[in-house]
């Protein structure tokens, strides 16, 4: 049986840290484990360093920090059900809040604005990002991940610019136009050309693309973009009509 000195224990701990294991409790677990192996398997006058390197090699496939990554993966999975619950509840709440907000807005009742803000913030900053996290777990190809990420950005931007527009907040127009341009020139082509290539997603992609195109087209048609001259005319009209109010 080999007896480890304090320096050798420090050496092992430093090496484990240097190899990218950052969680302290995992460092301590691995340190004790390596020490046990060395003490059990190395002969009294054996070569410590050489033996240590063969032992540590048995712990991983590519590098030691795999253990840290695997640990992080298992720990995040622990929150899977809680996250899924939050996503479903926030989705339902959003739907209810937005419907109530719409009724309030039509009836000109007080509180419509705050409900709208709440609903849209909820859908674009809680529901959609959580949905993205789940979707990212389901696919492995980088291209699919990118499509989901871009889709989420487009969706969140769509809701937020709608909010800005309804609330007459500054920057609404530019946000709106940017969202439509982004959806049309970045998200849609990537989505279409990826989905159309695979036999099993072809039909779905075609239908969704047509629907998305018509939504973007209609929204763009409804967007009032005025040439500079026309806008000036509007200003004049408003100033003229104001005194009569």
């Amino acid at each position: 049986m080999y007896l480890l000195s304090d320096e050798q224990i420090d050496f092992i701990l430093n090496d484990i840290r240097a190899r990218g294991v950052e969680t302290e409790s995992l460092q301590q677990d691995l340190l004790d484990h390596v020490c046990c192996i060395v003490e059990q398997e190395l002969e009294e006058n054996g070569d410590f360093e050489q033996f240590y390197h063969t032992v540590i090699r048995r712990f991983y496939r590519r590098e030691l920090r795999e253990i840290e990554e695997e640990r992080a993966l298992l720990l995040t999975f622990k929150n899977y059900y809680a996250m899924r619950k939050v996503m479903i509840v926030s989705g339902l709440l959003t739907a209810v809040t937005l419907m109530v907000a719409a009724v309030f807005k039509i009836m000109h009742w007080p509180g419509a604005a705050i409900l709208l803000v709440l609903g849209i913030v909820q859908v674009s900053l809680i529901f959609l990002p959580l949905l993205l996290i789940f979707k990212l777990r389901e696919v492995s190809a980088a291209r699919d991940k990118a499509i989901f990420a871009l889709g989420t950005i487009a969706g969140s931007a769509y809701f937020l610019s709608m909010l800005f527009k309804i609330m007459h907040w500054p920057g609404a127009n530019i946000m709106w136009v940017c969202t439509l341009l982004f959806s049309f020139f970045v998200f849609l082509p990537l989505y279409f050309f990826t989905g159309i290539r695979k036999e099993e997603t072809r039909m779905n992609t075609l239908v969704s693309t047509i629907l998305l195109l018509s939504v973007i087209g209609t929204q763009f048609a409804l967007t009032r973009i005025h040439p500079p001259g026309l806008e000036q005319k509007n200003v004049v009209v408003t100033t003229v009509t104001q005194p009569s109010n």
Partner: protein
Amino acid sequence: MSFSSELIKGTLKTIVLKLLKDNKKMYGYEITQKVRELTSEKIQLTEGALYPTLHALEAEGLLRTEVEYQGKRMRKYYSLSPSGVRKSQERISELTDFINTLSFLLDLKTGHA
């Protein structure tokens, strides 16, 4: 011959829970040695699979840890929490049922005889 890591992965939590149920408290190296010994080296747990699982079980509240200092280094002993005791029984019954179903499924001759 030892089993592939894919086969062990799905049953690792149950193996750990069962061992801790029988042995009260154990540290990581001890768990790997015990499994080797009990299975005549057919199941060899890797450190890369064992510690993430132990930490996940601890985060789920099924395991408790206590630390003992061994000179300059510390040794973490894992043991079952009260909910871990309940869970270990559940997992063992589930796995037993699964093994029976699987042996029936794969050994159709005996199943239909």
